């Protein structure tokens, strides 16, 4: 028994009949499991996980949910404009971000940009910017530009740009450079060669990326209002503060339905696009 337990942690060495010595490969699994458990406990302490409190207050949680059902249908009228705002912000932000990303991604691919220092530096900067959630941009922009949907749209554009450009330049680097070379030999400028020889190869992927960014953006756009950047987020903040859970329930329902619809449409479209 004890031997079995020890076996899990320490690899055995076997001596075969012909004298060969075989050592079992070191098994990471048990050590990792222990490390994970220990770290989880540390985290639990740090986040003040309080199981008794959870059980006590769980009633409050279910009460809250119960108040959200049935949702307050009459609230729909007040939700329409914010909902439209949210979706429009996502659409415009996605389109602007991706349209700017398309040409610039060429100059970030190693096939075209031969200056390595510039390439690494620029990409590095973009990956730093990519780590910031849209919400942070939204808050900063709403202070500078003023609250409202413009701040939201711009933050979505910036965030979309950083993601889209990376996906695009990674794709561009896998492309067949043959047609590009052929077009160069006809005397076309670099830009024209990119348009005619490279873009057709990534076109499907580009539109799939646009749809993917749109999906992601709709979710984050819903939150932006919380910091004053327009959309349904404003309402979320208000209604919850005033404990109007019936209204909150409606918002949840509307958001869930919207996201499901958009994701389904996007998934179907993307399947078709990547094929062609």
């Amino acid at each position, binding site marked *: 028994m004890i031997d079995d337990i020890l076996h899990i942690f320490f690899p055995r060495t076997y001596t075969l009949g012909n004298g060969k010595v075989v050592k079992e490969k070191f098994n990471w*699994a048990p050590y990792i499991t222990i490390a*994970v458990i220990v*770290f*989880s406990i*540390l*985290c*639990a302490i*740090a*986040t*003040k*996980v*309080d199981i008794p*409190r*959870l059980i006590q*207050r*769980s009633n*409050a*949680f279910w*009460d*809250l949910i119960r108040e959200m059902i049935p949702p307050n249908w009459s609230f729909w009228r007040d939700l329409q404009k914010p909902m*439209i*705002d949210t979706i*429009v*912000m996502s*659409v*415009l932000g996605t*389109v602007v971000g991706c349209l700017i990303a398309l040409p610039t991604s060429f100059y970030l691919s190693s096939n075209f940009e031969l200056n390595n220092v510039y390439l690494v530096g620029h990409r590095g900067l973009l*990956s*730093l910017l990519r*780590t*910031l*959630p849209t*919400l*942070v941009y939204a*808050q*900063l922009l709403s*202070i*500078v*530009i*003023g609250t*409202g*949907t*413009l701040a939201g*749209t711009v933050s979505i554009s910036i965030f979309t740009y950083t993601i889209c450009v990376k996906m695009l330049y990674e794709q561009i680097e896998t492309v067949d450079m043959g047609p590009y070379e052929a077009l160069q030999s006809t005397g076309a400028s670099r830009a024209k060669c990119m348009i005619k020889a490279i873009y057709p190869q990534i076109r499907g992927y580009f539109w799939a990326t646009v749809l993917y960014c749109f999906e992601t953006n709709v*979710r984050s756009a*819903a*939150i932006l209002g*919380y*910091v004053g950047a*327009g959309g349904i987020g404003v309402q*979320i903040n208000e209604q*919850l503060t005033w404990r109007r859970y019936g209204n*909150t329930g409606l*918002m*949840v329902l509307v*958001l*869930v339905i919207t*996201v*499901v619809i958009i*994701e389904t449409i996007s998934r179907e479209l993307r399947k078709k696009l990547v094929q062609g």
Partner: protein
Amino acid sequence: MSSKQLTVQSQLEKFPSVLPKFIIGLLSFVVFYILATITISFKGINERGLLIAINAFKGLFNPSVKIITDLGQYGLLQMLFETLAIAFLGTIIGLVFAIPLAFLASRNMFPKGINNICLTLISVIRAFPSFMLGIMFVKSIGPGAFAGVLSMAIGSIGMLSKLIIEVIEDLNPGIAEALDAAGCSTFEKIRYGLIPQLSSNIISIVLYRLDINVKNATILGIVQAGGIGAQLMFAIGARRWPDAGAMLLGVIFMTVVLEYFSTKIRTRLAGQKG
């Protein structure tokens, strides 16, 4: 000769017109323009905004050294660790629920009826805005990191399950058969057949979700569910630019480091497969 000329001419007429694309382009442009004017009002960049922007710039690039070096409760390290802890714990707890759910929803493990129920459940959970979940937990269980952990846990179940289902359905049945033929018990089949195939994939998936959750944990802070998010938003709101700068730096640093290691481990795992 004339028949050849006719062919070139007739092919010329068959040339696809650019008109439809042109119309679509124009129409989209008009639609976007209308939408933009409906929803967005550009009041112009006023002087105040510009002033704020300049101050912000100066402050953000002069991060507060005090916060960075403070190892206590209000220090950067503590805030970052709390954020990381929320993300980590949330992911692990989410995983605990996601694995059985994923098995139930896999076509090669359980019958179709159970599959569909679970898949619907997963879809609904996924679509639920995690942001609101955070607020709800804060309202009921009280503000703080604990609420964050819970919302993160539930929020992760969705994506984790979906990805794990893909892995399970990809499993190679041949290995189970081979082990059966060698006379293994169910426990041994699971240990030597199932787990090796799944584990590296699941670790990859967990790391992927962990990255995302760390970013989300920052956002959750805004609704006071713990983590650096709350402090960051307060600092920005109060125009404490050096403080905000320090925190942004911390967030960027932590995210980049995590992404780096997670990518490295994931590529190594992918290389070891098969």
